[in-house]
């Protein structure tokens, strides 16, 4: 027979409460991902069919946003020259946390067809943390959508922690950025 005595309530520690709230936040975050599209390469052509009636990204709660402050995902589609890398780092650092990065195509993974160019970086992961890659040159639209669903799974499993990695290993990322660019924050009349 079951005891009629009440078991004493178990008090949650502060970490457990924080974790529970974070899980609640993760539910909202993964169901409403807003993208900032950094379209530098040819893979950007796969995004119009993903957004319009063929694949309809909005049914997953995703949508394009106008500025980095409002966005959750930084979508890097295609190769990054050294000039655009600096702007990409500015953009990434402007986004509000938690922020995620999706690399589209083979150029952010290993340089793609531009791997031997002096003006193009080969691995994006050296400069900013990337959560999901969509491989292919270029990836078709199904795999682009699949990449976003993968990112949602990662947020659910708490493995999309690129923004934490960037904070913890900031020195390392900064060293790589300086090695590639010489100077990350430029001080002249156009950047003040």
């Amino acid at each position: 027979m079951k005891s009629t005595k009440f078991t004493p309530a178990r008090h949650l520690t502060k970490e457990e409460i924080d974790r529970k709230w974070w899980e609640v936040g993760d539910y909202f975050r993964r169901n409403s991902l807003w993208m900032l599209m950094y379209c530098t390469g040819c893979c950007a052509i796969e995004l119009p069919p993903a957004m319009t009636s063929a694949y309809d990204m909005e049914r997953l709660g995703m949508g394009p946003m106008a500025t980095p402050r409002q966005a959750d995902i930084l979508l890097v589609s295609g190769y990054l020259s050294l000039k655009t890398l600096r702007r990409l780092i500015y953009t990434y650092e402007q986004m509000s946390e938690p922020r995620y990065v999706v690399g589209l195509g083979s150029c952010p993974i290993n340089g793609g067809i531009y791997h031997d160019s002096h003006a193009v970086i080969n691995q994006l992961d050296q400069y900013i943390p990337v959560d999901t890659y969509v491989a292919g040159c270029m990836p078709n639209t199904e795999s682009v959508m699949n990449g976003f669903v993968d990112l949602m799974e990662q947020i659910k499993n708490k493995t999309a922690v690129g923004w934490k990695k960037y904070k913890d290993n900031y020195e390392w990322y900064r060293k790589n950025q300086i090695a590639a660019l010489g100077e990350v924050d430029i001080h002249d009349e156009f950047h003040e």
Partner: protein
Amino acid sequence: MVLNILIGIGVALFGFILQTSVAGVNRKIIARVQKRYGPRWYQEFLDIFKLLSKRSVTHGWIFDFGVIMALGGIIATAMFMPITSTILAFQNYDNFFIFVYLLAVGMLGMAMSASGSGNPFASIGVMRALTTMLAYEVPFMIIVLTIINLSGTSSLSGIALYQQATGNNIFLIALPLGGIVAVLSLMGMLGKKPFETYIAPAEIASGPMVEYGGKQLGMLFIMHEITVFIEVSLFVHLFLGGATNIFEFLIKYFLTYTAVNLISNVNGRLKIDQVVVFFYKWPLFLAIIQAVIAIYFGWVI
């Protein structure tokens, strides 16, 4: 008094939940118009709570204070809104001019906060928003003053009761030219597509909202939903004869917002000078003709 304030806060909360749901359903309707599947109907709630769950940066205390002022001002405005003739927080304080004045508090809070961010796009957006306001308010005011002249009262529930009286048509039918002007002005107020110049995501990067992210943007979204609730409810009370019960109000509200949204989504965007010229040309002309034939000739259907 405490009970009145509680009812007022309830009205504001009701407006927020109603408009957020209706906006979500409308996103689905628009998706179907564009042959897409569309998001879930509660997507707008997810968006707002996600924004509130994010970390955000600040650009100085004016930036933060302006957001709070905007949200507080809009909630204070919504507290005066009658839902039906009987559900009304503050009896005798539902005057049309109270809404005109109090809406400005929220708008100015947002303008102050956006300017405080220091981004030039935000300043351009605020300037465009105020210019658009200047454009649509003149014809809208002429029509509303005609209505006040005809019904002899400026209280929203009084105007609604006047239209519900036997023998009187609702003002959308009684003043057909004025009805057209009112729909156009409502689209300007809501920032719907032909008059969307101050948001313009592709042109000035969403205008006043350009520097907002995280919690501040979430609060602005809540503010925006309540503002839309106030503006559509004003239209329902002034031109559609208010409501005798809450279901009638819900139906009228949903139909008004959906119709405006459908018109909006088959239109492109005008430039800011085109918006001003448009409002000062046809709606102003129609509004003056309507006022003259309604007040001096007494021709009311």
